[in-house]
């Protein structure tokens, strides 16, 4: 088999697996739940817009402040983590629980291609579910008679989209690894995302660099975000380093997931 043929076959295998996974991943109860959460986030954007438009509170308030709060609290620290945890851990464990993994493992496809194909489906699904929430929140808050703020902050929206995408990649790969590796990936994922990351972000020194969230916070464009509190305790990582670290983390987690899938014997309970 020539190198070029192998690459072509590998890509075709991954695409086939991704399509197969998309069907089972997207059309599920999980998606209904995530869409519900997205709608609540959009509802909060609408509420923010109403507060802004009708001056319900006396303190000065800008669309940027509301958008920043939504981004840092609801999107980055909740939606991204939950969507990737939800779908990422399901990639392999759902096949194990449903005992359908046999059908995939008995096809002439290398196991790493199965993992990467499934991961591609995860990225596609989570992008489809999270990014529209970001864009629509921005539109709800910024679209008004005076379009100057809309265009001024468009760059911030672009950055946010990029950061959310990077976060989906990194968290997605990490939770895919947990799903392939552990029997109870949800608990481990929750403890990591809401325990370990929450505590370690506030610790000084190198420890905080052992989290995904540190690199996301380092490139986060919103100054008044609660995440910046964590930065008081240590330096930000420079943007190019943070981006490349996030990409590197993604690659490492994914490679580890592929290795686990290749070497682990999955005993499907009768």
């Amino acid at each position: 088999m020539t190198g070029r043929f192998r690459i072509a076959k590998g890509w075709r295998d991954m695409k086939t697996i991704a399509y197969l996974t998309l069907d089972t991943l997207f059309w599920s109860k999980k998606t209904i739940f995530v869409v519900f959460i997205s709608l609540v986030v959009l509802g909060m954007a609408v509420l923010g817009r109403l507060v802004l438009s009708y001056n319900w509170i006396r303190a000065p308030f800008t669309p940027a402040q509301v958008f920043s709060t939504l981004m840092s609290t609801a999107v980055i620290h909740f939606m991204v983590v939950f969507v990737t945890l939800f779908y990422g851990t399901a990639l392999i464990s759902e096949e194990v629980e449903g005992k359908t993994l046999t059908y995939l493992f008995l096809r002439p496809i290398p196991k790493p291609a199965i993992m990467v194909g499934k991961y591609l489906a995860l990225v596609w699904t989570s992008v489809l579910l999270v990014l529209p929430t970001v864009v629509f929140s921005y539109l709800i808050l910024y679209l008004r008679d005076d379009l100057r703020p809309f265009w001024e902050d468009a760059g911030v929206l672009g950055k946010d989209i990029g950061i959310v995408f990077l976060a989906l990649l990194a968290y997605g790969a990490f939770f895919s690894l947990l799903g392939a590796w552990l029997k109870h990936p949800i608990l481990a994922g929750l403890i990591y995302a809401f325990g370990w990351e929450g505590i370690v972000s506030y610790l000084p020194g190198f420890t905080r660099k052992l989290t995904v969230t540190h690199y996301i916070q380092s490139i986060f464009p919103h100054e008044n975000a609660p995440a910046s509190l964590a930065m008081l305790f240590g330096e930000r990582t420079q943007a190019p380093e943070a981006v490349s670290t996030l990409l590197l983390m993604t690659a490492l987690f994914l490679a580890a997931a592929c290795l686990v899938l290749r070497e682990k014997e999955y005993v499907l309970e009768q």
Partner: protein
Amino acid sequence: MTRILEAKGVSKWYGQVIAVNKVSFSVGPGVTGLLGPNGAGKSTLMKLITGQLRPSQGDLTLWGERIWNNYPLFYRMGFCPEQDSFYDRMTGAEFVAALLRLHGFSETEVNQRTDSALQQVNLVEARDKKIGAYSKGMRQRIKLAQAVAHDPELLVLDEPLAGMDPVARKETIRFIRILGKEGKCVIVSSHILHEIEAMTSNILLIHNGQVLAEGDVHDIRDLIDKHPHHIYIRCSEPRRAAELLVAFPDVVSIRFHPESNALTLESRNPDEFYSRLPGLLLRHEIALEEITSPDDNLQAVFHYLVK
């Protein structure tokens, strides 16, 4: 014989539990029945053969190549798993087609092969029905369809007749026999002796993770016939019946069950015993109420072989 599958001292253990214990055998073209009671290690052996598990010890090869993590072998192998699990949202045709795509066939070929596989298992009419709405027998057949759709040289079928009605069972047995006659290597597992006997005479007996016997089923039957056969008889006059039966040279012992008006005897020649029993009882006007053989199951076969 061309050796397709070869096992040399293969063992598999889960923690402290040994599921397959140093088994050595080889399988060639045609149908081979893997027989054993529940928990004998059949499914573990099937999983080892299909590369889902890695042997803890020993060599297991297909066409001379190791199986674990050797994905190109799956171009030549089809597997029908025991577990009743599917992508329930898919229709039967979608399920077979989706798995065929993973073999790299073109879309036209996928469609052709899907149609042909569904035809082979008599599921053409239910092709567009969701698998979730299939009956147990239909689900078994769709599993069989996905296993044969890519026309593999080796077919591994784990309890393929489970849950099928008698008609579907007969059809499937016929289908498996045809595959064997076509020169394909078919390994089929079951714990029901007569099911396997209907498909092949070539069997592999497994018990407690060990291969007990390998070869022609008739040879194994002969082996069993050398042991006395237990026969349970309930009739109107058990004592008189015993008196008559004990005179025959093949009857070696008789035990009474006074509470149920019955007796259990041991015969060295059960076929002859069964042929003369009705006439004898009729002549002496003894009413026969029940006759069964506790030995007429696989467990008894194992019992004899282990003893």
